[in-house]
């Protein structure tokens, strides 16, 4: 650790749905990855701000040009507005931990940012550019690797980081994971949302639902296997509040991500050297917002049963596991290393 009074180490998990930050000054925050600008004079007058971030942006979305600027964990391509939105998001995260961007007394900020395991090189470069002016030095690491590092699960372990945009896999074999050790799937929280919306629209065409309502329901009641209780929601139908049972739709939507995740898990396991496969099988760690789906570890253990069984655990703090891991990396890197990574 080479942290001084003048330097601040931070770990950022820039997620499609939520972004979290952990800092060496003890601050930890999570925000919804939404950025919105008032659409017109009326909006500006009402919200009294030039830009709104996170939940505040979501709550005032009718008045805003609302952006969810990250797609599958990286900046959406081809949109300058989305790039600007990511910068706003990063600036906001930094301000939450007490850093004033334009302060002359501001110390050096060293940031580790998690990106999807198989993010394009060009996406990494764009993210580095977005960090310009936000931090002084930046290191980009794969999200599951950041989780593994934070948990010190560096040998014979598999990390599955299931977020909104992607499910990222990484097998730790005592080395920095190579491409062969990692996978990224697009089947994650967002695909559950889309599936759930479609199923509800098919089965209850009269129900008026939005994708934001769907996301809220999923966060409250998502499950695979047997539900703890029936899932009922109240939604307007032609303006009248009506109750619907969406248990079956919720199960079908959540279980839709299981086959690709199980297949990838088994595929990656089969590529591990045979003498270590059992150890890896018994050390599968699930992180990310979608790891909170009820019954998910059991379902993945069931998938491992055809290989001889396995043990799947969910990290204690799925929301901050990535940013905490990033912070650990940032703290452990030497000053000389950080100088090589300066912006």
């Amino acid at each position, binding site marked *: 650790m080479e942290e001084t009074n003048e330097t601040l180490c931070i770990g950022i998990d820039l997620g499609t749905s939520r972004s979290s930050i952990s800092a060496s000054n003890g601050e930890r925050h999570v925000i919804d990855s939404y950025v919105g600008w008032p659409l017109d004079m009326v909006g500006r007058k009402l919200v009294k701000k030039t830009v709104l971030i996170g939940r505040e942006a979501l709550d005032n979305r009718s008045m805003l040009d609302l952006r969810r600027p990250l797609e599958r964990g990286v900046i959406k391509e081809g949109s300058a507005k989305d790039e600007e939105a990511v910068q706003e998001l990063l600036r906001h995260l930094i301000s939450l931990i007490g850093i004033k961007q334009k302060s002359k007394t501001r110390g050096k900020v060293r940031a580790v940012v998690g990106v999807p395991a198989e993010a394009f090189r060009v996406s990494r*470069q764009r993210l580095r550019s977005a960090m310009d002016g936000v931090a002084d030095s930046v*290191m980009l690491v794969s999200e599951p690797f950041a989780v593994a*590092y934070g948990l010190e699960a560096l040998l014979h372990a598999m990390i599955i980081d299931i977020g909104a945009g992607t499910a990222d896999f990484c097998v730790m074999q005592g080395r920095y994971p190579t*491409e062969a050790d990692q996978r990224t*799937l697009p089947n994650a929280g967002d695909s559950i949302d889309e599936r759930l919306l479609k199923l509800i629209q098919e089965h209850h065409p009269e129900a008026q639902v939005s994708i934001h309502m769907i996301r809220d329901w999923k966060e409250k009641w998502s499950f695979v296997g047997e539900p703890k209780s029936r899932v009922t929601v109240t939604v307007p139908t032609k303006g009248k509040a009506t109750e619907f049972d969406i248990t079956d739709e919720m199960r079908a939507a959540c279980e839709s991500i299981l086959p690709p995740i199980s297949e990838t898990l088994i595929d990656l396991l089969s590529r591990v050297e045979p003498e270590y496969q059992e150890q890896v099988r018994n050390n599968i760690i699930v992180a990310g917002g979608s790891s909170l789906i009820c019954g998910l570890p059991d379902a993945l253990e069931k998938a491992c049963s055809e290989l001889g069984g396995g043990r799947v655990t969910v990290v204690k703090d799925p929301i901050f596991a990535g940013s905490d891991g990033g912070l650990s990396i940032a703290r452990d*890197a030497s000053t000389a290393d950080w100088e090589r990574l300066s912006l």
Partner: protein
Amino acid sequence: MEKDVAETKLRILREAIQSNVGVVRSSKVKPQGLPKRAPPLWFWGFLLIAIGAAAADFVVRQQEREEVKKMVGIQLDTLRGIQNQKSVAHLAVPSLVVSRGKDPSSHSAAVDMANPLLPVGSHLLNATTPLSALYQMNRTVLPLSVRRIVIDPGHGGKQHGAISESGVSEKDITLDIALRLRGLMENGSLEVFMTREADETLPLEKRVAFANANNADLFVSIHVNWMEPREIRPLETYYVGATNDPAVIKLASIENRDSGYSLSDYRRVLDKIYLDTRREESHRLAKAINGELYQSLSLINPELENRGVKMAPFAVLIGTQMPAVLAEVSCLSNEDDVKLLTNADYREKIAQALLRGILSYANNLNGSEKKVADLWKKPTKLSASE
């Protein structure tokens, strides 16, 4: 033990930093621009005259350029299309300027680009490349005639593909149509290869390797769709490319299930495809085949829905090194389509339409009716055999 963990962490951390240093270096590389010192006035005068002369020459030579474009065979439009691809916006794509004097020996092609070397096939264009060299290059980049074709009946063996409610398997239908297509081609001078001739399991990467190893000029993969809602009866033909259509992504993920490729493999290869003139040729082939299929089958099947030509990242289209298409010739989720598919005459009609599509493409490529006649001596009677 703690010491071991600390050492492992330190080693891994060094590797992580090293991998980041590579990204930092490449992101700090600035494109080479004009020198900071302003050039003298005479330079700007000379430049203006040169631009004026070039513009006048451009107008005069427009017609000639079209002719040369055909001869050279490089699809300038394709290159411009590539330039417009946002995904490769960081790559410089050249404009090709061909100049021809009275003396054929003075013909030359200049490549104007920030990145002076654009790989095209196995060749690299230098700042001035003799036109004759481009002619030679064209023959390797895009074959001027179709001599060898690989037909790929989808699925097979343990991989049934789609199965209708009445139990008809995609793998059986595709093999039957492929065998019929080969039968129709036996009368011509085209060399026909099939990835499988029986009900056998064949991984997608082996199909790709087979087509590449045999230096095929065309690759045609035959499939039968399965789609919700079941009332629909779509006809679609695919060529390689990225897509945002969720239905196509779903279909590609189903068809690619046994590919042996990982998602990162697809991404890497798709990146290259943007720089691949082969894609434009695949598009033309797909259009020709889809047009013939619809024209022929809609007479028997009026409810057939022509969904046209689409891009999709199917494994067999990504890996093959020649113009390649995947035709979804019918739909096993629709029982009326299933009834038609169980009829030998209908399968024969599909094979004939595929043949006409292939020949139509070859005809345009060769630009000569005579060559097409060489390719295929039309049988006197196209009969449906059980």
